[in-house]
């Protein structure tokens, strides 16, 4: 019966020769992970003596039929709730290797435990119920395997007994999951029809699946490769600590990739200081001779005394990582509270930790959903791409260059809240200065809104020169002020005279102009004012950036007055100058204005009065929750 552990297997008392491969079993809740693990342990003869009998006795005592999954559900709490809540690790041997099976929970609530388990794995088995097919957690786990960097995935379609071992049903599921995984860059090594409960396809190809020609689960596990150390990549030695226990000054850390030996010329990043490795220290014997390769925890001394600290990365001159204050990353989020733009977080990358700010969020989706709807924040168990501005520079690589120094985790309140892959390390040129300490306002937002009768907002008027933006802005300012509110006008041209006086009209300068306007406006909005921005802002991308900065406070109004009307008004004489060739880079003549597609309001000032248009803007602000509707009318009706 025992196919894979022949009794003649030779002992390896030194424990050094057999490769160890760690495999995680993932998939939707109740698709049979624990059952498969229990069955695998039985089939490989790996159960401790008496364990099966003990659990059968427990089941009998509780009046429940025995389930294979009981083998894993060792915790009282689990048995009570009937679901695996944490990662369990079970070891067994196949013909060629030692296998550590990591059983990860399928319940969405315990995704953090699934990630904890899967992050340790060399390969994964994704399990799917033949009756239920691909479910949200199946897709989510598939996506997370990609984000965790698990490349070897075998798929098992379980409970084939429930679909009468239908080859057609199997093919249907196999096609769907293969498409999904391949779209993520993960090609499944096998898709296997099984019944974990009855044993079909686990260690044996039974007659009931005679139509299937691929490997069994055990054969597929045997084909998964153990992780290889990253010796072939450039040297990365993140510094854990500097020890001065005696007269030696030892720089300690683990070589994440590449190799080093005494005499190597190294660079310490992010500062870029150069030194030579004098010796590799060890215990009991020291110094240690020969090259030290990826995976080893080492201690080195340098040929000179320079400032080096925990979090620095030692690399070879010429192949060093980038130093950066700006990182773009694809992350998964585990915290109850969604990650939002502007959030203050702690980033850990290698041994470096630094405070950071989320500058932008894009492509935030629930990886479990089929048709993904992008959101502006990353909710719990969702994924997304973020731009992070770091308070301190650090050394990092894109994950495609180095998987170890190309990944980071995010901590909130001292607890790991998410993690992900570094997509690029130079997303922005500007960075937040090291020594800024934002001081919070003494007032609470609700104190201000109680007085002003409105929340803070950024009302962004965009449109051609002469479309009536400034006129509407001024009318709105007067209206809100008359109602006791606190509007502030930010006119694009006015700001160009001062704050933005260094900027011209190149695409790059326009982008920066908009960014500054948005930053000033959102600052006002955060302090309860309604910032009214009147700016041509012709680039859709720039306005999207402004919306990203101002986030939920942003209200865009497209002043859609026809171009010929605008030119005939020409309040500043710009059209005339441009026609005469005296004004370059002027928006309005030609097709360089990109109208909004999703503005909160569109107003054509050629067909209505200023008062009428202002009424409409005010109605929009009431409807979208900025301006509080008047209670006076209610009082009058009593």
């Amino acid at each position, binding site marked *: 019966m025992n196919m894979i552990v022949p009794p003649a297997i030779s002992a390896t008392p030194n424990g*050094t020769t057999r490769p160890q491969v760690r495999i995680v079993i993932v998939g939707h809740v109740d698709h049979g992970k624990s059952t498969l693990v229990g069955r695998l342990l039985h089939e490989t003869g790996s159960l401790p003596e008496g364990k099966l009998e003990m659990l059968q006795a427990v089941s009998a005592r509780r009046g429940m039929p025995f389930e294979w999954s009981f083998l894993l559900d060792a915790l009282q709490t689990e048995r009570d709730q009937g679901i695996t809540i944490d*990662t369990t690790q079970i070891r067994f041997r196949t013909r060629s290797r030692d296998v550590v099976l990591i059983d990860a929970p399928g319940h969405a609530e315990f995704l953090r435990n699934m990630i904890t388990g899967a992050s340790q794995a060399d390969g994964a088995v994704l399990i799917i119920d033949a009756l239920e097919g691909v479910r949200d957690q199946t897709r989510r786990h598939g996506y997370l395997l990609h984000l965790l960097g698990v490349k070897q995935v075998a798929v098992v379609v379980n409970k084939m007994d429930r679909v009468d071992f239908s080859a057609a049903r199997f093919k249907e599921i196999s096609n769907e999951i293969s498409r999904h995984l391949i779209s993520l860059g993960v090609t499944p090594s096998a898709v296997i029809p099984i019944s974990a409960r009855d044993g079909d396809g686990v260690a044996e190809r039974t007659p009931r699946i005679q139509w299937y020609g691929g490997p069994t689960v055990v054969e597929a596990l045997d084909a998964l490769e153990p992780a290889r150390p990253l010796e072939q990549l450039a040297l990365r030695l993140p510094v854990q600590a500097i020890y001065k*226990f005696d007269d030696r000054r030892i720089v300690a850390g683990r070589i994440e990739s590449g190799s080093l030996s005494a005499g190597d010329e190294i660079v310490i990043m992010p500062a870029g200081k150069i030194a030579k490795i004098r010796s590799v220290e060890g215990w009991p014997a*020291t110094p240690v001779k020969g090259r030290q390769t990826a995976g080893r925890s080492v201690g080195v001394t340098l040929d000179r*005394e320079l400032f080096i600290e925990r979090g620095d990365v030692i690399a070879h001159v010429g192949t060093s990582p980038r130093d950066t204050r700006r990182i773009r990353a694809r992350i998964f989020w585990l915290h109850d509270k969604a990650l939002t733009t502007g959030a203050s977080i702690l980033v850990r990358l290698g041994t470096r930790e630094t405070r950071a700010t989320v500058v932008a969020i894009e492509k935030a989706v629930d990886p479990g959903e089929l048709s993904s709807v992008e959101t502006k924040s990353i909710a719990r168990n969702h994924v997304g791409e973020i731009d992070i501005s770091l308070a301190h520079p650090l050394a990092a690589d894109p994950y495609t260059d180095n998987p170890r120094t190309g990944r980071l985790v995010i*901590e909130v309140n001292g607890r790991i809240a998410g*993690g992900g892959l570094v997509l690029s390390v130079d997303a922005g040129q500007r960075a937040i200065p090291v020594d800024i300490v934002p001081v919070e306002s003494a007032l609470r937002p609700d104190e201000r809104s109680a007085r002003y009768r409105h929340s803070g907002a950024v009302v962004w008027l965009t449109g051609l020169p002469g479309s009536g933006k400034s006129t509407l802005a001024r009318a709105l300012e007067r209206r809100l002020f008359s109602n006791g509110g606190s509007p502030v006008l930010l006119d694009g041209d006015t700001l160009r005279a001062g704050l933005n006086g260094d900027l011209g009209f190149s695409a790059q300068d326009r982008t920066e102009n908009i960014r500054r306007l948005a930053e000033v406006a959102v600052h006002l909005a955060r302090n309860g004012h309604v910032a009214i921005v009147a700016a041509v802002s012709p680039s859709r991308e720039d306005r999207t950036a402004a919306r990203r900065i101002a986030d939920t406070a942003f209200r865009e109004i497209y002043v859609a007055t026809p171009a010929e009307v605008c030119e005939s008004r020409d309040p500043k004489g710009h059209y005339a100058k441009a026609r005469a060739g005296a004004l370059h880079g002027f928006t309005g003549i030609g097709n360089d204005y990109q109208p909004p597609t999703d503005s909160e309001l569109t107003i054509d000032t050629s067909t209505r009065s200023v008062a009428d248009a202002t009424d409409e803007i005010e109605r929009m602000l009431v409807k979208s929750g900025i301006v509080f509707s008047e209670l006076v009318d209610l009082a009058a009706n009593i």
Partner: protein
Amino acid sequence: MHLLDNDQAGYLLRRADTTEEAPAQQISADARFHAPAMDHLDALEAQSIYIFREAFARLKKLALLWSLGKDSNVMIWLARKAFFGRVPFPALHVDTGKKFSEMYAFRDRYGKEWELDLKIESCPPLETIDPSLPPAARSAARKTEGLKLALAKYGFDGLIAGIRRDEEATRAKERVFSPRGTEGGWDVRDQPPEFWDQFNASPPPGAHLRIHPILHWTEADIWAYTQRENIPIIPLYLARDGRRYRSLGDQDITNPVASTASNIEEILIELDGTKVPERSGRALDHETEDAFERLRVAGYL
């Protein structure tokens, strides 16, 4: 005096940008010729050293729990490797007063020989322990109470413990850095995520962390490493009159197993064929199905 050298760094880096590929290939070619390949034990050792150094860097007041058994002896050995010979934090022995005499002899000898900062704390009497626990578990729970007293006395924020995932199902669910409540309890339902060797190391005030540097080792790994590194052991682990101890605890609640293994080599061969669980000689594991779990939730190792 080295400022000059560093000023040249920028120049070297710029120059290097244009020749990025060549040096990397050079280095990897060198590695193939000179580097001794890492084996399974090397990999385990490197990971444990990494964990020790993370704990030492991120916590303020650490102690290593020295139970005198094979696992904690390997742990001390690894700590000496991590810190180049000397363990830079106290070794804490929470003493039930009921250990085997061979264990006390071992402690007295190697505490000195390994230059440990040894702290011995005794456990409160049995009468003070929850009487609803089964007898062996109740006896073992004295250790939990002794541990709590030691924590209060010294204010440790991190305790390094030599538990392993393969020992027992509940230990398999442990994190490497495992937060404990202010009462020392383990909330298995709300463990933080832990991945990519990034550890949660910020216990709330009054609480502490358990750090498990050999969580990923197996019983066979421990013996293979003990043999390779020539780490001293208590002779009770070796067979005498057809019996030996696989696991050492209090004298009254630990039983030997049938065995003829008289040296480590033979222990490894025995382990390769056995299906008897390691802790089968520990009475407290077998009294009721949840006794051990209850102990662990309350703060037992």
